[in-house]
C-alpha cells in the first residue's frame, strides 16, 4: 500500500485482535457454535465471515474503537456515517473511531454493497455491537467506581458518576490489560433479528448521529494524499493491459508479434479469447498492448441495428413475465372509460463509465492469491476469483481499496479477474488498469428498457384503469455479485458461462388507481464476453421504469386538464408520499395550472416546470425541474432542480445533501446526454466524446434540497433514490414549456426538435 495514505487505516489487524489482551471484542453469530446451541444457524449468517464471525467491533485499551464492515465506501460518505453511528453509541469522538471496510480476512460477509442498503441494513449490527460495548464498559465502571449504572454518564470515552464527577474512569482504564470477548447471538445484519442484551440509544438522545460531521476522507483526497486502488503498489509489481475481441464473440486465432523480453514485455497471455500483456512498466504495457499483433475470427454481433433496437425489443418473446401488482379489473376499467390514452417510452443502454477506468492488483502465488480491488462485493469476488484460478476459497484474500466512484456492478470486479489471470501467468504481482475504451466500451451496461402504458379516463377526468408494462434485458445478465468465474469477463472470455438470471425492470409507484396492472418482462440478450452484457447501474432500471410511469402520469393529467401536482395528490394515500410532493412544490414556488402552459411560445426560448415523484424501497422523493428549451436548436437547459427527499432518519445532513446533489446531476446527465452507441461490430461509444456526460456549463443554476427527517423511523437509503425521478421531471418540464412530449432518453437536441415538429397546432 502507498505509505502516504492517510485514509482511515485500522489500528488493529484481526490477527492482532485475536492475540491481544486489553480489548473488548464484540462479535455476532458464530453459526456453527450457535447452530449447536440454538438448534439453528443465525438468520442470514449462513455464509459466515472470517472464522465464521458475523460482525465485529473492537474497543482498544487506548479507548479507540474499530469497526469492521463488509460495506464499502463508494464516495458517498458511508464510512463517515459508520464512524458517527459507532461514536454515538459509545460516546466517543468521531475521530476515535476507525472503519475497516471490505477485507475477506477481517470483515464479515454482509453481501456487499447495493440497493442503497449500506446504512439501512449494514449499520444495524454495527450499532448493536457498539451499544453492547458501551453496556460492558458501564458495568466495568459501575464495579470500579462503586455506583450503579444508571448514575453513570459518559462523555468522550470517560465515564463519570453523575453527581460526583470527580469519580471517573476512561474506557482505556476500564479495559486495562484485560481481554473481553463478547459474542452476541442471532444478528444476521437485519433489524428483525437483533436480540442483543444492550439497547441502542433512542434517537431523541442522539448528539452525533444527525449532525453534519465532515467526511473523514475528504482532507486527504483534496491534498493528494489518499490512496485509491490505482495507487496500490507491492514489491516486484508488474503492469498489465488487456485486449478485448474487436467484435463480440470473435475467436482468438493468434496473438504475437511482441517478443517476451523485449521492450520490457514479461509475458503475453492468451487463454481462449482472453488476451493480455504484462510488462515491467505501465507505459511499456500500454505500448505492448498497442503493438501486439492479434488475429481474430470474423464475427458479427447478434444484435439488432441500433436504430431498430426498440422495435426489435417489442418484437422479441419474453423469457420471464412478472406481474408485480394487479388490483381491480383493468380490462373492464379500460372498456368502460370515456376515453383511453396510451404511450410508449424508450430508455437506452447506459454505461457506468467510471471516471477512473477499472483497476486491480493481483498477487497470485502457488496455492494462494491476494487481490486488491474496488469491488462492491469482497466476499463474492473472493469466490469468483477462487474458481477462476482453481484455488480453494479460503486461499484467496480480497482486500477492498476505494476506487473511482462506481454505481453498481461496474468493471472493478472484471479488472480483478484480469489481474488474477495475468499474475498467475507471470508469477509476479500484476496491476491492471483498463484503458478508457476498455472502460466505457466494455463495462457492464445498464440495460435498455421499453415501456408501454395505457390508461382509461372517465367523463370527469378520473382514472378508471392503468396498465403498465416495462420490458428490458435482464438487470442481472451479469450478476451484481461476482461469485463464479463466469460472472467475471475474463472467465467468460475463457469459456465460462455467465451466471446471469432474469431480473425484470422493476417499477415502484403507489398510485391508488381503481384498477391497476404493473408488469415487468425480460427479453433474451447475449451476455458472455459481450461489451453489452447487462447489470446493475444505480437504482437498477428504475430511472427507466419511472421515466415511463411519471411521464405518463403527466400525460394523463394533461389529458384530464388537471395540474400535475394536484393530479398526483388525488391518487396518493400515504402521508410521506404526499408530504414530499407538497414540500417540493412549495419550495419550487409551484403555481397550480395544467400543462402545457397556455402562453407557451411556439418558437424561440420557452420555459417550463415539471414534477415527478417516486418511492425507492422505503425512501420517497419528489423532484421539480425548471427548463429552458431553445426551440430552434432543440437544446434543453435545466436551470433549476428542487427535490424533497425523505429517507427516514438522517445520519449526516450535509453528507446526505452532497449525495443527493450528485445523484441529481448524474441522473440529469443520463437524461440529457447518455446513450451507449453500437453497431454490429461492437460498442462504438468508447470515450468522453462518443459517450458525453454533463459538464460544468450544463449544470443547473441552482439545486435546492428539502430534507424531511424522521427520527422515529430507521435510516433508509439515499445512494440511489434521487437518481430516479429526474428524467421524467425534465421531460414533463419540456412538455410544460412547449407542448412537445419527449418519450425517448436521452433528450438530445435532435429528439427534442423531432418532438417539437410532432406538435399539433
Amino acid at each position, binding site marked *: 500500500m502507498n505509505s502516504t495514505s492517510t485514509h482511515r487505516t485500522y489500528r488493529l489487524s484481526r490477527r492482532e485482535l485475536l492475540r491481544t489482551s486489553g480489548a473488548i471484542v464484540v462479535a455476532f453469530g458464530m453459526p456453527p457454535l450457535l447452530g449447536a446451541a440454538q438448534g439453528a444457524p443465525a438468520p442470514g449468517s449462513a455464509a459466515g465471515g472470517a472464522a465464521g464471525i458475523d460482525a465485529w467491533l473492537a474497543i482498544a485499551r487506548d479507548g479507540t474503537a474499530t469497526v469492521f464492515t463488509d460495506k464499502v465506501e463508494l464516495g458517498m460518505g458511508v464510512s463517515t456515517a459508520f464512524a458517527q453511528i459507532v461514536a454515538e453509541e459509545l460516546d466517543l469522538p468521531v475521530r476515535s473511531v476507525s472503519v475497516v471496510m471490505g477485507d475477506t480476512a477481517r470483515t464479515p460477509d454482509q453481501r456487499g454493497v447495493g440497493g442503497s442498503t449500506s446504512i439501512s441494513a449494514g449499520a444495524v449490527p454495527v450499532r448493536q455491537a457498539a451499544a453492547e460495548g458501551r453496556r460492558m464498559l458501564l458495568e466495568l465502571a459501575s464495579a470500579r467506581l462503586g455506583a450503579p449504572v444508571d448514575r453513570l454518564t459518559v462523555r468522550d470515552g470517560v465515564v463519570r458518576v453523575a453527581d460526583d464527577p470527580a469519580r471517573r474512569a476512561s474506557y482505556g482504564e476500564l479495559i486495562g490489560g484485560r481481554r473481553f470477548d463478547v459474542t452476541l447471538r442471532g444478528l444476521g445484519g437485519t433489524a428483525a433479528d437483533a436480540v442483543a442484551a444492550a439497547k441502542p440509544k433512542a434517537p431523541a438522545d442522539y448528539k452525533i448521529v444527525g449532525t453534519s460531521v465532515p467526511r473523514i*476522507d*475528504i482532507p486527504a483526497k*483534496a491534498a493528494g494524499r489518499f490512496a485509491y486502488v490505482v495507487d496500490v503498489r507491492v514489491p516486484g509489481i508488474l503492469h498489465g493491459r488487456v485486449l478485448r475481441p474487436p467484435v463480440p464473440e470473435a475467436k482468438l486465432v493468434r496473438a504475437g508479434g511482441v517478443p517476451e523480453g523485449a521492450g520490457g514485455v514479461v509475458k503475453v497471455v492468451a487463454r481462449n479469447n482472453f488476451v493480455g500483456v504484462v510488462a515491467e512498466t505501465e507505459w511499456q504495457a500500454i505500448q505492448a498492448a498497442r503493438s501486439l499483433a492479434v488475429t481474430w475470427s470474423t464475427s458479427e454481433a447478434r444484435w439488432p441495428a441500433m436504430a431498430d433496437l426498440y422495435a426489435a425489443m417489442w418484437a422479441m418473446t419474453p423469457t420471464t413475465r412478472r406481474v408485480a401488482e394487479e388490483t381491480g379489473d383493468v380490462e373492464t376499467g379500460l372498456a368502460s372509460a370515456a376515453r383511453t390514452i396510451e404511450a410508449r417510452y424508450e430508455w437506452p443502454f447506459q454505461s457506468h463509465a*467510471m*471516471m*477512473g477506468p477499472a483497476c486491480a492488483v493481483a498477487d497470485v502465488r502457488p496455492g494462494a492469491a491476494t487481490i486488491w480491488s474496488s469491488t462492491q462485493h469482497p466476499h463474492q469476488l473472493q469466490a469468483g476469483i477462487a474458481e477462476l484460478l482453481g484455488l480453494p476459497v479460503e486461499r484467496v484474500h480480497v482486500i477492498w481499496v476505494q476506487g473511482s*466512484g462506481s454505481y453498481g456492478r461496474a468493471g472493478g470486479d472484471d479488472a480483478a479477474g484480469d489481474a488474477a489471470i495475468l499474475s498467475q501467468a507471470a508469477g509476479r504481482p500484476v496491476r491492471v488498469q483498463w484503458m478508457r475504451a476498455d472502460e466505457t466500451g466494455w463495462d457492464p451496461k445498464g440495460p435498455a428498457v421499453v415501456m408501454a402504458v395505457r390508461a382509461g379516463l372517465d367523463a370527469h377526468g378520473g382514472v378508471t384503469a392503468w396498465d403498465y408494462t416495462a420490458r428490458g434485458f435482464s438487470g442481472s445478465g451479469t450478476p451484481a455479485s461476482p461469485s463464479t468465474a463466469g460472472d467475471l469477463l475474463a472467465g467468460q472470455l475463457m469459456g465460462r458461462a455467465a451466471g446471469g438470471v432474469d431480473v425484470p425492470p422493476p417499477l415502484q409507484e403507489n398510485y391508488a388507481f381503481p384498477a391497476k396492472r404493473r408488469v415487468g418482462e425480460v427479453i433474451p440478450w447475449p451476455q458472455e464476453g459481450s461489451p453489452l452484457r447487462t447489470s446493475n447501474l444505480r437504482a437498477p432500471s428504475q430511472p427507466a421504469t419511472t421515466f415511463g410511469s411519471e411521464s405518463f402520469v403527466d400525460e394523463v393529467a394533461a389529458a384530464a386538464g388537471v395540474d400535475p401536482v394536484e393530479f398526483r395528490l388525488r391518487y396518493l394515500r400515504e402521508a410521506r408520499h404526499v408530504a414530499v410532493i407538497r414540500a417540493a412544490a412549495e419550495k419550487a414556488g409551484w403555481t397550480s395550472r395544467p400543462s402545457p402552459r397556455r402562453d407557451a411560445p411556439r418558437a424561440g426560448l420557452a420555459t417550463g416546470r415539471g414534477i415527478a415523484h417516486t418511492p425507492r424501497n422505503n425512501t420517497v422523493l419528489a423532484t421539480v425541474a425548471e427548463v429552458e428549451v431553445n426551440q430552434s436548436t432543440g437544446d434543453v437547459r435545466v436551470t433549476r432542480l428542487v427535490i424533497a427527499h425523505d429517507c427516514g432518519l438522517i445520519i449526516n445532513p450535509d453528507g446526505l445533501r452532497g449525495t443527493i446533489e450528485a445523484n441529481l446531476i*448524474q441522473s440529469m446527465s443520463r437524461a440529457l446526454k447518455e446513450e451507449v452507441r453500437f453497431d454490429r461490430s461492437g460498442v462504438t461509444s468508447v*470515450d468522453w466524446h462518443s459517450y458525453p456526460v454533463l459538464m460544468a456549463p450544463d449544470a443547473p443554476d441552482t*439545486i435546492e434540497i428539502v430534507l424531511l427527517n424522521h427520527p422515529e423511523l430507521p435510516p433508509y437509503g439515499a445512494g440511489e433514490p434521487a437518481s430516479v425521478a429526474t428524467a421524467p421531471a425534465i421531460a414533463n418540464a419540456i412538455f410544460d414549456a412547449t407542448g412537445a412530449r419527449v418519450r425517448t432518453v436521452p433528450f438530445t437536441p435532435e429528439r427534442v426538435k423531432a418532438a417539437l415538429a410532432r406538435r399539433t397546432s
Partner: protein
Amino acid sequence: MSPSAPATRLRITVNGTVRAVRSAPDTPLLYVLRDELGLSGPRFGCGLGQCGACTVLLAGAPARSCTLPLSAVSDRPITTLEGLGGDKGLHPVQQAFIDEQALQCGYCVNGWIMAASALLAKTPNPSDAEIRAGLRGLVCRCGAHMRMLRAVRRAARARG
C-alpha cells in the same frame, strides 16, 4: 525492478525538487510522476486529454500529463496536487474544497483543483460563467459539480 534500457536520464523539476528520471523520453509525464516518482495526485482517467484527472501545472499553466511526453517538459517546473500548497500547507482552493465538502469519490478532484487554482491565478474574481467556462473540460462522473463550483467561488472570495 528497473525498467529496461533507459537511454538517457532526463531531469525534471517536480514540486520544487529536481529529479533525475529513467523513463524513456516518449513516456507520458503521468506515468513518470505516478510510477517512477510515486506521486498519486494526478490520476489516469482517459489517456486522451479529455477528462482532466491527470492535470498538473506546467510553469503554472494546466497541462494534461497523460498526453504530454516527458521529453516535452524541458525545464518548465511541474506542480502536482501534492505540491500545490507549497510550504504553506494547503492551497486556498484545496481548503475551499474541504470546506465545501466538494467531492463524492474524489477521483477527478485533482483536475478540478489544479485547473481552478490556475484559473484563479489568472482571473482572481471570476464570474460564475467564467468559472464554468474555465472548468468546462473537466469530467466529474459522480456529479459533484454544484459543490465544486461553490468551492471555487469560495476560494475566489478567500483570496479576496
